[in-house]
């Protein structure tokens, strides 16, 4: 594939960026969830 660096680079930026965000956000949420009683979690 020509311009493979650009093409694959943009896929890496997109999915890498989203994955990094999701991982930090959800692990932080789990840390917080341990300190909050279930009564304050409307989804449970």
């Amino acid at each position, binding site marked *: *594939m*020509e*311009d*493979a660096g*650009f*093409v*694959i*680079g*943009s*896929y890496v*930026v*997109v*999915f890498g*960026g*989203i994955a990094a*965000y*999701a991982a930090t*956000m*959800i692990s*932080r*949420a*789990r840390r*917080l*969830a*341990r*300190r*909050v*009683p*279930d*009564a*304050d*979690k*409307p*989804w*449970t």
Partner: protein
Amino acid sequence: MANAPAGGITPTHDTGTRVTQVFGTLAALGVAWLCAFGLLFSPADRDQRESVRIMYVHVPSAWVAYLAFGVTAVASALYLLRSSHSLTWDRLAGASAEIGVLFMGVTLVTGMLWGRLSWGVFWTWDARLTSTAFLFVTFLGYLAVRRLGGTQHQRAKRSAVLAMLGVLEIPLVHFSVRLWRSLHQDATVARIDGDPDLDGLMLFSLFVGLIAFTLLYVWLVIHRQRALVLEDALEDHGLDAALVERRAEAALQGGGR
């Protein structure tokens, strides 16, 4: 930890539920499908050749960014207009704005890479490009304002008003940049997305991308919104705990005298 889990027998240490699992799985499948189509199965374009493959991630992330900012604006308006002033709308606005900034960021980066390949430059002062960049900066400011502190309702009101002002600002920026360039020179670049002669498989891949990214957005927003509920709850509890401590302290001192 300070407070032991109260309530249910099996405490939830998570922001996930059945709904998020479904959305997460579907989004993951969609993304896998998109990568397969975008990188392998779909053909290279006649004019753009291989660089067209960037389109399958660029256009869906741009769509999600606009969708996210639209949801922020609507949720902010609902917070302000509804007499209940429910913080749920505020948290939805905040969660959506954060994810919008993420997707707008990757849209700008992939757009620059694509632009370098098809226009020869990373950046051009096209009206849509420029107003998109301004949208990005405006929402960075919005997120900064959300972190300013104060009570939760202060945060909600302040940021909701700011989002409304953003709705006022962006058309003005877009229009002024358009007028700014059109008076002097025509945009030298061809409109790329919305290319009328995309062949069937390419159009299908793009469609898969739009669906997959929308599912990803929904999944992220649900999680982020729940994380915000936790943050707010913890803030309230922290305050309650501090008050109880202070009262106990005051009672002790009062008793001593």
